């Protein structure tokens, strides 16, 4: 049984590696860092494959590891930047007064990390709220609230957003 799950995991990784890279890249914005994140996620997932409960859980289980790796990578990188005495740090808070129709990617980056993550998983990876809930560990209602809040901050057309939320 464990052996079958192990094989399935390998198959899943091979089939979806491009998606993993995109997710990682959307976090790290850097090719080398994204590759590192995917590689160590694959390594950790394979080492811990015995923890997968069943085949259906592979996807959310792997994404959880992957996003963890991305965040860890970001933290490390930020530390490096700090010690290198670079003052140029990205504002991590939401700023008022941006223009509607501006660069939405930049706006997205100004949101809290977990809100960003939820929006990415929902719109880019087209995951269900339930899946996002099991990846992030937030309960379903929290995911919904955070998603709505994020979208509001992005001043997205709420009608469009509604289509996506359900």
């Amino acid at each position, binding site marked *: 049984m464990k052996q079958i799950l192990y094989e399935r995991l*390998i198959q899943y990784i091979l089939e979806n590696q491009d998606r993993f*890279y995109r997710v990682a890249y959307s976090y790290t914005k850097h090719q080398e860092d994204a590759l590192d994140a995917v*590689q160590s996620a694959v*390594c950790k997932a394979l080492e811990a494959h015995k923890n997968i409960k069943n085949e259906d859980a592979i996807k959310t289980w792997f994404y959880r590891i992957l996003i963890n790796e991305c965040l860890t990578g970001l933290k490390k990188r930020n530390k490096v930047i700090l010690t290198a005495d670079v003052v140029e740090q990205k504002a991590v808070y939401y700023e008022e007064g941006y223009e509607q129709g501006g660069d939405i*990617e930049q706006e997205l980056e100004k949101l809290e990390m977990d809100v960003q993550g939820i929006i990415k998983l929902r719109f880019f990876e087209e995951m269900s709220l339930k899946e996002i809930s099991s990846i992030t560990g937030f309960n379903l209602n929290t995911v919904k609230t955070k998603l709505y809040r994020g979208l509001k901050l*992005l001043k997205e057309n709420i009608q469009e957003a509604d289509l996506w939320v359900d």
Partner: protein
Amino acid sequence: MGRLEKMKERYDEIVIPEELNIRVQQEIMKSQRQQAEKNSIRQRYRLKKVIHGMEAAAAVCILFIVALNTNSVFAKEVAQLPIIGGLAQILTFRSYETEKDDIAVSVEIPTIEMITEDTGITVEKINQEILEQCNQYAKEAVMRAEEYRTAFLETGGTLEEWKKHNIKITVNYEIKQQNNEYLSFVVRGTENWTNAYNKSKYYNLDLSTGKFVTLKDMLDGDYIELVNKNIREQIAERQSAGEIFFTAEEGGFTGISEDVKFYINKNNHPVIVFEKYEIAPGASGEIEFEIGGN
């Protein structure tokens, strides 16, 4: 179109670097090696237990053998003991089957695994090469089949007719010899609708050196002359038995080159291989000549 959708579009356009696949495969290979190691340690441990048990049983037996004179039974049991541990073995690294647009793909990629660890032989590079070549072949074969499909449909063929083609792409391997001296195996790629791209690559590994074996290593003296003479004799013999070979004018056998394809068979003899159409009509398929066997 909403801004989110535009953003999603840009997201989907993020370029995937080629290195990604290599690094992912590396991790998988590493993990599979560790898995295989764990399994073989477990197996060896189990085998050891069995042997210990047998030794104890043997000690008991010896006490009675003289009196009962039934040692032939015991001898038989000893003969059935499996040989413990070779130096290396061939395993399936990865196998998968896919089907898209009625193009079936079946891939079985071999990998060499060293069982004995302190031989100093590294097989990673060979394994990596095999893996890359298999993937490359499968990828190209699918592209060729897709091109064929497009052309077929564009020239008025229907999807049902296409389906009837039963296109199948196969990458697999066959072990020829696996003992403590040699590892010999062939990796093949075939497309069932055309022979033009069929590929076979032979790997012959000398386990005492970790290097690829050449014909020169296996045969003494002027090995090319020796092999040529031997093959000519075998062709003559097979011709008189009714087999058809091309004449030299038709492009038949004129002598081997240094890089002629061969594998090592169960007798530890080199076997020279000629591809379909190479020296005989296609109906004969691949043609083989064992050198040194009678």
